């Protein structure tokens, strides 16, 4: 019985990891390609949640959860074009400062528009409750999220590995100078990567709006865990982020099974151990421009 309970926690952890992945993947991509640690990433997650709650009142949840990330991805174009673009070659401290400042501006803007009190929305009735598969219990809604995340990951993998777009992006991660020497401008690719990254974060926010508190500081809350995932996974690696996200979810679940009070600390202990053994992260590539 004990073992089954543990297994149930492991499976639940994998589901949760899928959700962490939505936020961490964009963060990792933007850093890998642009060299920018986007501290404003959480702000797009929060915006995704708020826009989804707002649209749900008029269009229903199903439509809103699609439109909200698309709207945020469009905002991503402005973000890349007018802000990030100025900092690719600048001292990293500048981009840290500017994205940190932007995160604060976004949080206050949300507070001004929607107020300090949380807003709320509900899961559609058809996705309420849980299903029992074998001995395992799953939230119906989280299974839906897991399915969507899996589909998106396949899509992103194909995009990065099977298209010419992906080849340029991956080359840009390793040797931006060589890409430039071949006469390819990286900037449009970067715009697309930022759109994809912040759009995924917004999708995470939209999906979690019905099951968590939607409040102005929610973006700051999610950033810690997203960074932990990116650091554990290692930079520049698609699979690294995926493995790290799932690992973080599972380790947390196992810790809560055995020692609930250590649940939140466990993921930081995991990060600590990984950094001691492999400072580059689990599958981190050696990237020349960051050495």
């Amino acid at each position, binding site marked *: 019985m004990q073992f089954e309970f543990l297994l149930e926690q492991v499976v639940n952890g994998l589901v949760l990891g899928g959700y962490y992945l939505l936020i961490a993947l964009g963060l990792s991509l933007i850093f890998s390609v642009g060299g920018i640690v986007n501290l404003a990433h959480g702000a797009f997650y929060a915006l995704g949640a708020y826009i989804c709650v707002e649209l749900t009142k008029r269009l229903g949840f199903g439509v809103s959860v699609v439109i909200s990330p698309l709207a945020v991805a469009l905002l991503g174009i402005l973000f890349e074009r007018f802000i990030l673009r100025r900092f690719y070659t600048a001292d990293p401290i500048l981009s840290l400062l500017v994205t940190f400042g932007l995160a604060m501006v976004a949080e206050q803007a949300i507070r001004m528009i929607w107020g300090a009190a*949380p807003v709320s929305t509900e899961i559609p009735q058809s996705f309420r409750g849980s299903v029992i598969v074998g001995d395992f219990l799953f939230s119906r809604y989280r299974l839906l999220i897991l399915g969507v995340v899996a589909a998106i990951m396949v899509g992103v993998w194909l995009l990065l590995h099977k298209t010419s777009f992906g080849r340029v992006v991956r080359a840009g991660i390793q040797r931006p100078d060589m890409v430039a020497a071949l006469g390819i401008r990286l900037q449009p690719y970067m715009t697309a990567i930022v759109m994809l990254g912040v759009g995924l974060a917004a999708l995470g926010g939209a999906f979690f709006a019905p099951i968590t508190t939607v409040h102005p500081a929610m973006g700051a*809350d999610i950033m810690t865990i997203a960074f932990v995932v990116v650091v554990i996974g290692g930079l520049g690696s698609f699979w690294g982020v995926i493995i790290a996200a799932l690992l973080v979810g599972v380790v947390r679940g196992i810790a809560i099974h055995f020692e609930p009070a250590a649940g939140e600390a466990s993921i930081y202990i995991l990060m600590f151990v990984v950094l001691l053994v492999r400072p580059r992260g689990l599958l981190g590539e050696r990237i020349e421009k960051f050495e």
Partner: protein
Amino acid sequence: MIRYPRRTLLRAGAAFAGAAALGFPAIARAQAEKIRIGHLTPLTGFLGVIGSYAQLGAKLAAEEINASGGILGRPIDLLSEDSINPATAATKAQRMLEQDGAVVLLGEISSASSLTIMQVAERNKKVFFSTGARSDALRGKSCNKYSFHCDIPNTVMVNAVGTALSQQGMVKGKKFFTLTADYIFGHDLLKAAKTFFGAHDANLIGDELIATDVTDFSPYLLKVRQAKPDVVCCNLAGNQVTNLVKQYAEFGFPYPLVGFNLNTGDAWAAGAGNLSGTWPTVWYHTLDNPTSKAFVAAFSKKYGKPPENHAWIDYVTLKLLAEAINTTKSTDSGELIAYFEKQAQFDIGKARKAYFRSWDHQLVQEAYPFTVKPKDQMKDQWDMLVLGDAVPAANDPLETIYPTKEQNPCEMKA
């Protein structure tokens, strides 16, 4: 020709010196005439949402007091800030008393922060009204002469909900599983819950301590299901409650969810359709009495939404403090304490008047259990709760639901 400008210069200089000698000190004196009151409450973190309401309530009270002539004929200067965490709360409290010249402090929701401010108040011999902290320990083993407690303590919340649950046959012989906030408030609430379960033949079959920054409750919910309880009981605080309520609705468990702590703000945040069960509250904006109605009208007019219970408690606290200062004609800590310890009665917008109990400085007042309105009966997004009858019943003394001296002893040093 040269003498004119020089004379002009001289006049300007004299005017400036005169202003310096007369004008500026006059401005400084005018400022000194204000009575400064320090207000601290969490505006960020897991209690930030309800803390924002507390700040709005205190500000409204200050405005109303000033509009009606202030205290001792002088306006209140309310200094209201984010208390952030226990350490910062203490530092800010010390600064408000020492540098800003605050004569009295009020506020707070976190029991941990309230405890550190209580210590600062005692050290500085200034009165502090802990408006929103609910831990029994603050009134018991950590109590001190300078601190007064306005919100209902954990024991009262447990008694209010427990009594309602007993009437529904949901206590005796039932298996409870509790989820508890992992800090002083939660530990204290669990203790009160255990006392109640013990006294009413209920079994506590499991408890999980949950950190205040947790947003995903799924691993804990799996443990709840594994334990197969009769009733799940929430001893959480702030955003934690909102997250649990939403995710409990998500998983759709058959075990009823009840709770020993809930603030209306957290219920609103959870939204209609997610919340169910029986919970306690200290005040709700639908209470039908003149004081309460006037407050709700003024608050709604100013802020465009109805007040939450923390807005109410900070509002009535500042009001009763002003009343005390005007009655005693003093801001002296000793005189104020003596006045409150005489158990002066205050209208706080409830059917019965309230008073600070002399031996532990607890504001003794009615409390209410509530259940949740069906979604189609709500008039608006704020109209979520159905209040039960006030506890204790109208013919029982108010103190019957409060811990006794033996249960929660408080020794105040002179």
